[in-house]
C-alpha cells in the first residue's frame, strides 16, 4: 500500500485520518481492478486534432 502521508507531505499537503482512509480505500479498489485491465486497450484519452474543415473556417 502507498504511504499517503509521505506522498502528501512531499506536496506540502496535510492529510487527515479520514482522507488517508478514503485514499487507502480507493488504492485498494484500484489494485483489485488492475486484474480487469486489458493491457492492449487504449484508455479513454484522446488528442483532438483540428479537422481540415475546422481550419477552413
Amino acid at each position, binding site marked *: 500500500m502507498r504511504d499517503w502521508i509521505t506522498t502528501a507531505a512531499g506536496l506540502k499537503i496535510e492529510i487527515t485520518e479520514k482522507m488517508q482512509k478514503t485514499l487507502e480505500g*480507493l488504492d485498494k479498489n484500484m489494485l483489485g*481492478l488492475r486484474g480487469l485491465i486489458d493491457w492492449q486497450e487504449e484508455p479513454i484519452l484522446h488528442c483532438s486534432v483540428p479537422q481540415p474543415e475546422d481550419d477552413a473556417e
Partner: protein
Amino acid sequence: MTSMTLIEAAEALRAGQVSSTELTEECLKRIESLNPRLNAFLTITAEIAREQALQADRERRSGMDRGPLHGIPIAHKDLFCTAGVRTTSGSKLFENLVPKFDAAVVERMREAGAVMLGKTSMHEHAYGITCDNPHFGAVHNPWDLARIPGGSSGGAAAAVAAGLCLMGTGSDTGGSIRVPASYCGVTGIKPTFGLVSKYGALPLGFSLDHVGPIARTVRDVAVSLAAMAGPDKRDPNSARRHADDLLPPKEIASLAGVKIGIPENFFFERIDMQVDNAVHFMAYRAQDLGAELVSLRVPDGRQLNTIAQITLLVEAAAVHEPYIRKQRKLYGEDVRTLIDMGRVIPGVDYVQAQRLRRRAQDVFRMILKQVDCLLLPTTPITAPNIGQSEVAIGGETEDVRMATTRLVRGFNALGLPSLAMPAGFTRGGMPIGMQLVGRPFGEKELLRIGAAIEDATGHTLRRAGVSTA
C-alpha cells in the same frame, strides 16, 4: 399560475390565456416570499426578467413563436456564465466574477425565448451534494425545510419544486442533477456526454461534467433539453448531434415491446425499504403498460464508482490547481479536502481508471443491447437533514455523501443518459426518486418511457408543502 407545469404554461401562453409578464411577475412574487426560507436563488435578476418577458409578449403579439420555452420563466445554476450578471459557482473564490459572455446553455435558452429570473444556489464549485454552502448559507428542501435539497444543483431543484420557476438549468458531474431531482421530487435529465455544450460552464470534471434541465415533469424536461442540445464548436466534447424532437406524445397508451432491465445486484442492495418498494412499484406500472421487465446482473457498481471517483478527484484537482495553493482560505473545508486528495493521486492511477472506464462502457453497451433501459433508484435514501453526516441504511452506517452518490456516479463515467423522476413518497411525505438509464443518444426513447410511467402514476401532481403564508 406557478402551479402549472412548463408544458401547461406554454399552452396557456400560446392560447393567450396568460402573458409572459404575468407569469414572470407571479414567479418574482413567489421568489420574494419564499426565497428567504429556501435560499434557492443566489441572485435575482428581476429587471432582466421583466424586460425579457415584455419582449416575449411583444414577439408573440406580432405572431412570432420561438417554441415551448417562449416566455417561460426559468433560472440558471450559478456556474453558467451570464454576461453582466455575477457567476459565483457557489464560491467565495468567484464571489465577484461578472462574466462578459453567456454560457452556451444561457444563449440557447435566450434564443428559445425563455425569461431569466436569476441564478440558483449550489454546492460550492458543484463539488458536493448537500448545498450546505459555507459562503452563502444552506439551501432548504421545500418538502421539509430542515432537510437538504441535494446537490450540487440543489437551488434549481428547490426552486422548481417550490414553484419559483418552471425550469432550472443544472450540471451533473457525479449526480448533481439527479440527486436534487430525487430529494426534491422533481424531474431532471443528465443527457449523453456531449449532447449539450459545456461552453461557459465553470468546470469541475472535464470528462464527467454534463449539462441538463431540471423541471416538474418528463415532458417539461424533454422540451427544455431539446432547446439546449446541439453541436457547439466552442466545446471540444460537443457531439455533432441535434435533438430537436424529444417531446413524448400526449398520451402513451402502451409500452409494448419495451424491455426494461432491473439489476439483481448492487442497485437494490443496501437501500431504504420504502425506496425499494416505490421503485419496484414503478417497474410494475411499466409492466402494466406492456413493458417486459428483465432481471439482469450488472458489473459491480463499487468498481465503477472507484473509476468515477479517481477520475473526478484528479480532474477537479487539475481544475483548481491555479487557485488552491494561493487562495486556500477561500475554499470551504469539504471542497478543499477533496481537492487535496485529488492532488496526491498518482497520474498512473488516473490513466488506468480511463482504461477501466472503456471496459465498463463496453460491458454496459452489451447490457443495453439486451434491454432498452435500466430502471433503478436514484438515491438509496430520501433527503437527509441539513448537517447530517451519516445515515443508517439496513442497520449499517454510511457517509451521507457516499450513500447519496452511490447509485448515480457511475453513469457520469459511462456518459450514458439518465432520466431522474419521482417514484413516490415515504410515509413521512418525502419524495423518492428513480432513474431510467438508456443507450448513448437514446434520450428520445428514454423520455417516452419515462413519460408513460409518469402518466400512469401521477406523482408529479403532488406539490411541496412550503407555502407563502
